[in-house]
C-alpha cells in the first residue's frame, strides 16, 4: 500500500516541486509556529505598555528553553545546568558594557558570552560523554554545574557584584547604518522577537539536518548509533556546546533587557524552571519550549498577583497534571490531535 503511495509521492515531487515543497513545509508544527510568531509580531499593535515591556523577557526565557529542548527533546539529555550558561552570557554582557566603551561593548558581551559558555559546555561535555556519563548521572552533574555557577557568582563579587547583583544599562546595538537602542521598549521588543525567530528557525534547521537526525537516534538507542559508525560522544558534546551557546545568547540579552543580574539566575532553582517550561510546553518541539516559557512565566506573574500565597502550589499542580496525563506537553498534545498533519515532520 505505502509502496504505491511512495511511488505517487515521488512522481508528484518531480512534476510539481513547488507544491511538494509547500506540502512538506505545511507540517503541524510549522503552521502552529507561524501562528505563534505572527501573534507575537502583532502584540505591540494591540497592547501598549506592560505586555510590550515584559514579553521580551519571556521570549528570552523561550530561547533559554529552546537551548534545553535541543538537549532533551532531540538528544534525550535532561540538563539542570542551563541557568549556568545563561548567567555566563548575562555577566559577559554586563562586564563588557562596563569595561568596553562605545558601540563594541554590547557586541563583545554577546560574542564573549556565547563563546565562553559554548567552550565551557564543550569542555565539560567532552569529559562527561567520553566517560559515558548519562541518564540520571548526567542530571546530577548538571545540577552541580548550576550550583557551582551560583556559588562562583556569589563569591567572585569583584567581578559579578556578588549577592548585591550587577546593574546593566540598556544598550544600543550598532549595526551598519542603523543603531537599535533597547531603551525604547518597542525597539527592544522587536529586537528580541527577531532573535527568538532566528534562533527558532536555526534550531529547526539543525533538527532537520543530518546532525539533528543522528542526535535523535542517539536519544533512541545510543549503542546502535555508535555501532553504525558514529562517534556519539563527539556529537553529544557538540549538542551540549551549541545548547550552552544558545543559553548564553539569551542571558546576554536578558542582562541588558532586565537591567539587573543576580547570582540566583545561575542557580538550580532557575534551571528547574527551565525544565518545567520545556516539560509543560512539550519537549519534542522547539515551539513547545517557547510556548512553555512564555506561558508559564506569564501565568506565574498573573497568579502571583491574584493569589500571592498559593500560586506556586497551583503551578506545581499544573506541572503534575501535564507530566501525568499529557506526556507530550501542551504543544505535543495539540499537534497529536491532527496526526495527518504531523507526518511531514
Amino acid at each position, binding site marked *: *500500500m*505505502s*509502496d504505491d*503511495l*511512495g511511488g505517487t509521492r515521488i512522481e508528484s515531487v518531480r512534476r510539481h516541486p513547488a507544491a511538494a515543497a509547500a506540502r512538506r513545509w505545511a507540517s503541524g508544527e510549522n503552521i502552529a509556529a507561524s501562528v505563534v510568531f505572527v501573534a507575537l509580531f502583532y502584540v505591540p499593535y494591540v497592547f501598549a505598555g506592560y505586555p510590550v515591556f515584559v514579553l521580551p523577557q519571556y521570549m528570552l526565557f523561550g530561547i533559554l528553553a529552546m537551548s534545553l529542548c535541543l538537549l532533551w527533546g532531540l538528544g534525550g539529555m535532561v540538563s539542570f545546568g542551563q541557568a549556568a550558561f545563561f548567567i555566563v552570557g548575562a555577566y559577559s554582557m554586563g562586564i563588557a558594557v562596563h569595561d568596553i566603551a562605545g558601540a563594541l561593548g554590547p557586541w563583545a558581551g554577546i560574542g564573549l558570552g556565547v563563546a565562553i559558555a559554548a567552550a565551557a559546555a564543550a569542555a565539560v561535555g567532552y569529559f562527561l560523554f567520553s566517560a559515558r556519563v548519562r541518564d540520571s548521572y548526567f542530571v546530577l552533574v548538571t545540577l552541580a554545574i548550576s550550583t557551582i555557577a551560583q556559588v562562583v557568582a556569589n563569591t567572585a563579587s569583584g567581578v559579578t557584584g556578588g549577592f548585591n547583583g550587577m546593574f546593566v544599562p540598556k544598550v544600543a546595538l550598532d549595526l551598519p547604518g542603523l543603531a537599535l537602542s533597547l531603551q525604547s521598549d518597542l525597539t527592544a521588543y522587536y529586537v528580541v522577537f527577531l532573535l527568538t525567530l532566528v534562533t527558532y528557525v536555526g534550531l529547526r534547521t539543525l533538527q532537520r539536518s*543530518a546532525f539533528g*537526525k*543522528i542526535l*535523535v*537516534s542517539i536519544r*533512541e*538507542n545510543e*549503542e*546502535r*548509533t*555508535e*555501532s*553504525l*559508525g*558514529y*562517534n*556519539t560522544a563527539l556529537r553529544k558534546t557538540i549538542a551540549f556546546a551549541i545548547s550552552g551557546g544558545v543559553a548564553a545568547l539569551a542571558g546576554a540579552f536578558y542582562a541588558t533587557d532586565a537591567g539587573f543580574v543576580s547570582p540566583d539566575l545561575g542557580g538550580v532553582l532557575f534551571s528547574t524552571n527551565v525544565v518545567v517550561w520545556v516539560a509543560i510546553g512539550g519537549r519534542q518541539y522547539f515551539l513547545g519550549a517557547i510556548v512553555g516559557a512564555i506561558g508559564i512565566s506569564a501565568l506565574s506573574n498573573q497568579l502571583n498577583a491574584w493569589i500571592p500565597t498559593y500560586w506556586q502550589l497551583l503551578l506545581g499542580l499544573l506541572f503534575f497534571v501535564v507530566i501525568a496525563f499529557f506526556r507530550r506537553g501542551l504543544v505535543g498534545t495539540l499537534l497529536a490531535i491532527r496526526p495527518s498533519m504531523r*507526518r511531514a515532520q
Partner: protein
Amino acid sequence: MTAMLEVRGISKRFGGVQANTDVGLALPESAIRCVIGPNGAGKSTLVSMLSGHVRPDRGTIRLRGKDITSWPAHRVASAGMVRKFQRPSFYPDLTVRQNLEIAVLGSGLRRRALAVRVQEVAESVRLGDALDDPAAHLPHGRTQWLEIGLVIGRRAQIMLLDEPTAGMTPGETMMTAGLVRELVDTQGVAAIVVEHDMGFVRALEAEVTVLHLGRVIAEGPMSDIEQNAQVRAVYLGEEVA
C-alpha cells in the same frame, strides 16, 4: 589471495573466565563464514572483539591490511565492519524509513540520493512496503531484517551478524538465509554469521568455524564439519541425539 579480514591469535579473559583463546580466522572478499559452537563457546565475545566493543588481551585483527585491534566500535564500523547485535537493537519509536536514514546518512549520502538509497536498502531486505510504519509495529522476524538493513545501509563491507534468526519461525529462518546469501552475491559484502540453527547454516553453504570453550576446534565446509568426530562429540552430538 589475501584475506579481507585477518584475525590472528586473539584471546580474551573476563575475570576467571577464559572466553577466547588464540582464535584465528581469515575471511576472503565476498565470503560468508559461519561461527557455530555450543553455549559458552565464546561466539559473542569473538564478535564483540571484531566489532570493537571488547578489546582483545592478545592477538591482532586486520581489516584490509590495517590493524584495527584497538579501534573503538564507531571507527570499526566506519571502516566497514558493521555489527547486528544478538538482542534486538534498532530505533523502535522511529519509522522504518527513519531507521534506515540513520544508517545511510553514515555513508555520506544526503537529500535525494539519501531517499533513493533508503528505498533501495528497504527493498533489498523485503521492507519496501513498510517504510512509513513505526519500527515497533513490525513483527519480530521483520525487525531482524530491518537490523540487517541497517548494516547494509551503512555500506558494510563485512556484516557481523550475531544470531540473525533468533526467535524466527522455520520459514522466516530459511528466508533469512536466502536474504544473506543474496546480499553477499549481489552487493559484494562479506559476512560473519554466528548461529545456532543448523538448518540455517547448511542453507548458507559457507565455510564454518566451530568454537568450543573459546578455541577453534574445526574449520571447513559444513559437510566436512558434520563428519568431524570431535565436533560431533562436543556439539552436533547433542543436536542429533
